[in-house]
């Protein structure tokens, strides 16, 4: 009997051991052999049809220049980028280097998920552009370096619109007159599925009509100026001059195919638009709203606090900041700016004369965050977008929607 028990005990222990091994056998791969540290750099732009392959080639240049550090690209789609990467970072995992958008950057910095850069990168060596760079520092601690700064402007089909509108009324009437059959005068994001994109779009209407999400201390979501700006957005929606229900990927393709006359977009999409249709004749002008203020996509590159190779990750950032690499990055990103001041080449200006339009907007461009409540921006964004869409759908009038958003967001931040 005791022999029997021993056999059973051995069999049981073996079974348990196998199960335990299966459960715990997913250890980390760690650094590669041969003394080479392998890093991952996550950015949604790696998946862009126009810029992605060029950015990957730019990374390859870094890899060729190094014998101890190698960086590989991780393309995470834009709509789920923040959620995916923040979830990984929250659990102490994730890529070593991340290109964030501002709302997620602020949330991650506030939660201590981003490594401070002050001791890793000596920024005094570089000629950083001050306006966007000021948002990289919190309470005297630097959390990021601008990877891309992209101002919003009005893209228009030059075949359909020989002279771009310069006032909101002209903008409205141009959109209306162009809308016929399967051609739409304008396109913007208006579905809850694209919450982050809707926020980027309505930002231009709010700030372009003199509004703001906050005064730095208190939220001002339901201010009269915001109401005016968002009413302009809703009027365009109600006028049926946009392809309703179309997501950004769809209406941007429509723009490239000449089916959409205008859209407010950032400089990053110049390359992508050309990539979709090299023959499209399009140009860019400042957004024709009463106040010259518009959003800017500020995309910092940061080092994950959980990374075991921070110094190696900083090696990449230092390499990226070198003047010749900044120029190459600038050329890849097209109408966007990079961290440092770079001179646009004569060829680039000849090929894309409206690059200067984007550059001139830098001083009046703002990151799409709620000033004073930076880390809470994703939560405030959700509340605002849900209520604005409720107004678009006619569930409630716009003023009540903004009052409700103000109340809900105030509860969130208090």
């Amino acid at each position, binding site marked *: *009997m005791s*022999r*029997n*028990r021993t*056999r*059973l005990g051995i*069999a*049981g222990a073996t*079974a*348990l051991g196998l*199960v335990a091994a299966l*459960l715990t056998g997913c250890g980390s791969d760690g650094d590669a052999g041969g003394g080479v540290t392998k890093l991952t750099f996550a950015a949604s732009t790696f998946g862009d049809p126009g810029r992605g392959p060029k950015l990957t080639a730019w990374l390859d240049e870094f890899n060729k220049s190094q014998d101890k550090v190698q960086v590989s690209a991780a393309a995470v789609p834009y709509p789920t980028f923040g*959620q995916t990467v*923040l*979830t990984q*970072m*929250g*659990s102490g995992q994730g890529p070593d280097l991340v290109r964030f958008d501002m709302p997620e950057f602020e*949330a*991650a910095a506030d*939660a*201590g*998920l981003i490594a401070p850069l002050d001791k890793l990168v000596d920024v005094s060596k570089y000629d950083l552009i001050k306006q966007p760079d000021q948002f990289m520092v919190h309470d005297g601690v630097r959390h990021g370096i601008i990877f891309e700064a992209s101002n919003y402007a009005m893209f228009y089909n030059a075949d359909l619109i020989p002279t771009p509108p310069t006032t909101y009324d002209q903008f409205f009437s141009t959109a209306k007159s162009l809308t016929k059959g*399967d051609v739409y005068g304008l396109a913007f994001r*208006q*579905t*809850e*599925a694209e*919450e982050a994109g809707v926020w980027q779009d309505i930002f231009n209407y709010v700030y372009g009509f003199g509004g703001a999400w906050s005064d730095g201390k208190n939220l001002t979501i339901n201010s009269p100026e915001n109401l005016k700006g968002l009413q302009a957005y809703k009027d365009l929606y109600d006028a*049926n001059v946009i*392809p*309703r*229900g*179309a997501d950004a990927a*769809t209406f941007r393709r*429509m723009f490239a195919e000449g089916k959409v006359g205008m859209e407010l977009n950032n400089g990053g999409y110049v390359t992508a638009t050309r990539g979709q249709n090299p023959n499209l004749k399009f140009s860019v002008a400042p957004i024709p709203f009463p106040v010259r203020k518009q959003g800017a996509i500020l995309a910092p590159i940061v080092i994950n606090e959980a990374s075991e190779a921070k110094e190696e990750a900083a090696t990449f950032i230092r390499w990226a900041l070198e003047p010749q690499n900044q120029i190459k990055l600038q050329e890849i990103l097209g109408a966007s700016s990079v961290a440092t001041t770079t001179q646009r080449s004569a060829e680039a200006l000849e090929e894309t004369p409206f690059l200067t339009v984007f550059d001139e907007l830098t001083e009046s461009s703002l990151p799409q965050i709620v000033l004073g409540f930076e880390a809470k921006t*994703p*939560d405030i964004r*959700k509340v605002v977008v*849900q209520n604005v*869409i*409720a107004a678009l*759908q006619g*569930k409630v009038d716009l003023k009540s929607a903004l009052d409700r958003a103000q109340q809900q967001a105030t509860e969130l931040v208090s």
Partner: protein
Amino acid sequence: MTVLERTRAPKTTRRSGTRRGPSPLGSKWTPYLFLAPAALFILVFQAVPLAQEVYLSFTRTTLLNPTRSQWVGLDNYDRIFGDPDFRHTLLITFVYVIACVVGAVGSGLVVALLLNKGFRGRGVARALVTVPWAAPGIAVALIATWMLNAQYGIVNRFLDAVGLGVPGGAILDSPRYALPAVLATTIWQLFPFTSVVLLSALQAVPQDLNEAATVDGAGRWATFRAVTWQVIKPTVGLLAVLMTIWSLRRFELIWLMTKGGPVGATETLVIDLYSQAFDSKELGSAAAIGMVGVVISLIVITGSRLVARAVEKEDVR
């Protein structure tokens, strides 16, 4: 233990046979050893996460710092039940589940009755019916979204052509039409399963009983009610429970089609849970919503068992 006794070889045989060492299969621990892997699996992958979720629901925990949680007692439950949006979510969940059960079982029954009749090409029809069930949920959601697309969708074009077009064209962005569109897609995917299961149940209906009912002068409806329904009733009950549980848990189809929008029109419990956990990054509230889902599922299962027992007793009488 009864099983163990039954599987043992008769003692007389053992005595008369060649002398061997005691078989490990004969030990009283054998059943436990066989059960251990399954029990361990359930413990590790079901019980531990469930216990963790119960604990989480009493804490304020954010996704960005999940290891730093603060005990808040019933605050999360207080908050979600005090939120009119959550009550709306419960209502949408209720409507979605009921419509799915009625729609999937009802349409499955109609199709099963049709497929149970003899006609040319029945074999092909039976095979074709299973296609939606075989299609991956993600593919179904993407195809449906494309078909309902405001600009290029075939459904929209058809509705416009017959004068029933939705104003603006965006069915999935309309709070009025989004839920019916999601429901239609869900039922389209579910009905093959219910029809195939019900078809097999229908084939177990004794033909002589049907014939006897017809000879007695019963009409089609009376025959169905008195004979067919009595045979397939337990299967319908089982399908209703399965459809309820599956509909309560369904995520990918709704998420891919509408993400719970517009304005919460298709936001069911699981969508709300996901939004709380990954959009709002509030793991505590998400866990509390999850617990509400668990309780609802338990009520459904217990309720169905009680109903089934009552029906059995009724039948015995």
